[in-house]
């Protein structure tokens, strides 16, 4: 049996490993930018899709179906991103006689439309952020809602967006004035003064529940993950379990997540995302009908292999565990390592990975999609890999993370590693005290930069430069070897020869 992974990078390699565990042969697909990429060179079969742009390669359904036919694949796993949440792709696979490793197209559709999924969840008894369903006629109507939901509330323009007509209200006496102004603003901006209200969650956490299910009707909640450390709404660090969730909240989260999964007869691995308030109340955000980037932290703590479960489920086999066989053991943390320059505003840093030294030792797992010498193309998501550490508790996991980050060397492209090295030192991070806007505030309040050399390190630098008799000439060392990207940049006058960052300093 052969399984085609319609994806690239670390997730393709992760799925290949699950295939090998199951005795399934692996099929890679690739664009012209990825011919020499690890996901191709580590596959049993590899089929070209097309040119570098995603739309002509990893997003091209006809090209992927043709590749599956050519390689004789029986199964197709979409990974995450690209076509992972495309019901049309799931249907096209089925029509071509291929088994799609993921949920039913109906479940993808039902959860894909955010407004209708909210109504569906309300019907299933899953808590959603309280709000008025009809535009308010007057301030009194809003006050009645606020009394039920509690202050603060957020007034929103029904026709709107972009902050126009949006107003935070903390007290009942402010409501009439806020309503009048929001209405006037909405009227002026959108020609429609309809205003509705939503409960405003202050400093919420992003907590999500992993669901594992099969095609025989078994559904199990496999713990929650804490994903509040986000930069501009993108997850950066994830952990399992959440430091904010105890047994009581966990039990309620599981019940709600399973109700959500039941409502769409979910039959694969998926994730139900919630916003968690400080008082332990939580609200449905969305369901991701796919394997998540951060699935390894769950695997490390709950002792399950989510990817093999997903493949087994697609083949009609039952889950290999029930809820009673699961036990939470220890704590795991994942850092997403991106080819972005954390010390210069997270600007993209495509190029060639000239040096790669991965951390090792107890509790360390590396899910990476690169090797030394790998190109990081500008065409795709700049994630290089994920560093996952596990320990007996959160304190040990953080100690191991700290140790692993000091071993992790990537040269040739700039990365987000400097961010994590600072983050592990932060008191609030170590105490688990953060929320979804915490990291943006943290980053705005400081600059990340390379650590100053100590005197001992300065002596080292002076000696090492002297040792070769004549110091290596600029441009001849490994770190300085021109890359194709840098060549182009120099030709175009973007980077001064030998300079590190060109104009973006």
């Amino acid at each position: 049996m052969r399984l085609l992974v319609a994806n690239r990078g670390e997730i393709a390699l992760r799925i290949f490993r699950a295939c090998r565990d199951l005795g399934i042969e692996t099929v890679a697909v690739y664009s012209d930018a990825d011919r020499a990429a690890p996901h191709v060179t580590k596959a049993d079969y590899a089929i070209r899709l097309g040119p570098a742009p995603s739309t002509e390669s990893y997003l091209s359904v006809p090209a992927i179906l043709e590749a599956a036919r050519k390689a004789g694949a029986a199964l197709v796993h979409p990974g995450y991103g690209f076509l992972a949440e495309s019901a049309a792709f799931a249907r096209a696979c089925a029509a071509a006689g291929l088994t799609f490793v993921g949920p039913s197209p109906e479940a993808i559709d039902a959860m894909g439309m955010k407004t209708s999924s909210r109504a569906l969840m309300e019907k299933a008894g899953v808590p959603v952020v309280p709000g008025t369903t009809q535009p308010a006629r007057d301030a009194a109507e809003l006050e009645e809602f606020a009394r039920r939901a509690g202050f603060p509330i957020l007034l929103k323009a029904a026709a709107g967006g972009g902050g126009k007509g949006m107003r935070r209200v903390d007290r009942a006496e402010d409501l009439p004035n806020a309503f009048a102004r929001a209405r006037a603003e909405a009227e002026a901006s959108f020609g429609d003064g309809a205003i509705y209200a939503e409960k405003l969650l202050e400093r919420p956490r992003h907590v999500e529940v992993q669901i594992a299910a099969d095609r025989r009707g078994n559904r199990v909640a496999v713990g929650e993950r804490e994903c509040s450390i986000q930069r501009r709404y993108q997850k950066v660090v994830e952990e399992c379990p959440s430091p904010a969730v105890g047994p009581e909240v966990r039990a309620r989260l599981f019940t709600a997540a399973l109700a959500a999964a039941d409502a769409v007869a979910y039959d694969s691995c998926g994730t139900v995302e919630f916003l968690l308030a400080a008082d332990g109340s939580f609200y449905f955000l969305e369901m991701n009908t796919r394997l998540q980037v951060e699935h390894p932290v769950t695997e490390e703590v709950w002792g399950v292999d989510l990817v093999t479960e997903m493949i087994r489920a697609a083949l009609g086999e039952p889950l290999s565990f029930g809820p009673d066989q699961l036990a939470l053991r220890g704590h795991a943390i994942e850092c997403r390592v991106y080819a972005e320059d954390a010390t210069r505003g997270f600007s993209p840093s495509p190029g060639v990975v000239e040096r790669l030294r991965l951390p090792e030792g107890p509790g360390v797992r590396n899910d990476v999609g690169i090797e030394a010498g790998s190109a990081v193309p500008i065409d795709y998501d700049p994630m290089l890999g994920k560093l996952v550490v596990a320990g007996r508790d959160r304190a040990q996991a953080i100690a191991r993370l700290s140790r692993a980050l000091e071993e992790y060397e990537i040269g040739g492209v700039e990365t987000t590693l400097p961010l994590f090295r600072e983050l592990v030192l932060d008191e609030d991070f170590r105490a688990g005290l953060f929320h979804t806007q915490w990291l943006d505030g943290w980053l705005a309040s400081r600059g990340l930069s390379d650590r100053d050399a100590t005197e001992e390190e300065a002596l080292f630098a002076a000696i090492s430069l002297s040792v070769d008799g004549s110091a290596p000439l600029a441009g001849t060392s490994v770190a300085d070897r021109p890359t194709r990207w840098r060549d182009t940049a120099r030709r175009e006058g973007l980077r001064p020869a030998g300079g590190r960052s060109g104009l973006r300093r």
Partner: protein
Amino acid sequence: MKARRRFRWGRPGGEPAELVVEIRDATRASVKTPDAELLADFARLPDGRQSVILPSGRQVTGRTTLRCEGRAETWVGARRLAIRLSDPLRELAGEGSRVNSVAAEVRAQIPGRVVEVRVVPGDRVCAGATLVVLEAMKMQNEIRAESDARVVAVECSAGQAVDTGAILVRLEPGPAE
């Protein structure tokens, strides 16, 4: 293999210090600092890195390369360090070829789409001020001024797709206001 080299080290928060390194033999080097003279053991590793053991027993492994402007780039362990270590001779040699203040072109480093233009011709901007927001690799990137400058011309507009090397903004160095 006797060799002697001088370096200037800009100590963070202190006076620059001169370091004089003399290679004694295949494994030993002496270093003279303003405060002391010490003898260190060094070894070249197969992957090109160096390991140095100081008299205290402190061991440091990493790599250092000298950039063309005479400054060093140093990695110790897995980290790049901020270090102002220069070779005074090379610095002098580089001085003559340094380019003086001329109008600078701010270009796109990667292909993308201009999301926002934050400046208009005539604006005076500080070093670090955002000029243009460029979307590429699914991310919004703020293109910033490298130094205090005056905006001479804006060569792009919001919504426009740009290729690598496209000129976005022309600047003229000068004090910000």
